[in-house]
């Protein structure tokens, strides 16, 4: 998906000044090329401000916990267990 890849790969080239450049897709280079000069600059600066270059190095990600005591929540993942509906489980992997 173009958008997801752009979110992940689109911005950081400017942040990390690598010595051996040239790994970029021809596609993304073309996109950069047609961007108005000022706009490109602005994005880079916004990204730099948004991303903390000293953020903590942590692989764990703790999101908010659902209330799994609720019947509704339990039902929503029932088919992810062998005790649930196997045909629905298999359907996920089509």
């Amino acid at each position: 998906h173009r958008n997801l890849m752009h979110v992940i790969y689109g911005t950081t080239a400017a942040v990390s000044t690598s010595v051996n450049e040239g790994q970029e897709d021809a596609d993304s280079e073309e996109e950069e090329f047609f961007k108005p000069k000022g706009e490109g600059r602005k994005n880079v600066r916004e990204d730099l401000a948004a991303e903390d270059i000293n953020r903590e190095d942590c692989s764990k990600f703790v999101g908010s916990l659902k209330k799994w005591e609720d019947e509704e929540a339990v039902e929503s993942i029932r088919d992810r267990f062998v005790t649930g509906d196997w045909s629905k489980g298999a359907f996920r992997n089509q």
Partner: protein
Amino acid sequence: MGKTTYKRLPGSQSLRQRLLLASLSSTAIIVEDIRSDSTWPGLLPHEVSLLRLFEKVCDDCVVEINETGTKLKYKPGIIVGGRNLVHDCGLSRSIGYFLEPLIVLALFAKKPLSIRLKGITNDPKDPSVDTFRSATLPMLKRFGIPTEGLDLKIENRGVAPFGGGEILLSIPIVQCLTAVTWMDEGMVKRIRGVTFSTRVSVQLENTMIHSARGIFNRLLPDVHIFTDHRVGPQAGKSPGYGISLVAETTSGCFISTDTTVSYRRGEEGGEMEEEKTELVPAEDVGQQSASALLGEIEQGGVVDSAHQGLLFLLCALCPQDVSKVRVGKLSPYGIETLRNIRDFLGVKFIIKPDPSTETVILKCVGCGLKNLFRKIS
């Protein structure tokens, strides 16, 4: 000899992966602006300890740090591995912080690694040593890493603030990894887990197990959580307790969560906050950990969110074959890993969301890393 070209990188972010990928790809790096604007500028104790660990496992690598610790020069050497190494991981991060880069590094060493790591075994910030044993090591097997010589033994447990834990880690070497097509997350067939307690009553473990089981009860009968109460030197130097849980699926995926409760070192000086802070009750710990596990299962990836980074790394280090994997929502660490892989190995993933399952499918061609005795020019 020739002049070394350094890759310049800003900030302390992703230091572990940067050092790892620099070593694997023989790229010299300069890391600058390390917490330059912080009250405590420069490298933190665990980062210095990590550098020392890299020096121990590698030959001829060069580490230079400036006076304030805000600039680091790293020139990788040869990964040698070796037997009976010992490393003190310190007390500012747990052993889990060191394990991910160390395991991948050691796979590509000249000799198999066996090392004793000292420090904190269980901690809320990093995956615990239990999680490494029960979820990370089985995951490595998927990539063709032999089970022989792959082991993690928890000799002593140790929690913050004073640690005292010790583990024995053995990692075999590989010629190269095997690319994977790992798309089927399967259905959860059983849940296993282990609780531990050091310098507190074993009753806390039973409470954690009881409340965790309460959450799983309506979903699955096959739930077994073992206890591991430690006393004497095996219990380390500080009181604490925790639980780690693993859901095993019909397709052989291991989805894990863990958490630990212990006292923290005070912000200034070495003063303990023991008097001020109250520990989270064991009942809540069990419930929260079980809820976190269900949250990970709901995501529908072949690994949990904490293992996304390692999964992408292994895919990228494979021979030049296509690897295809499914994960849940991309974690911030997973995204950072993808960027680091692109920067160091030139491997870019094709990333597609799968709307019907709300998962993400990633595909890449490995960089073709081989474990050869390389000469550095």
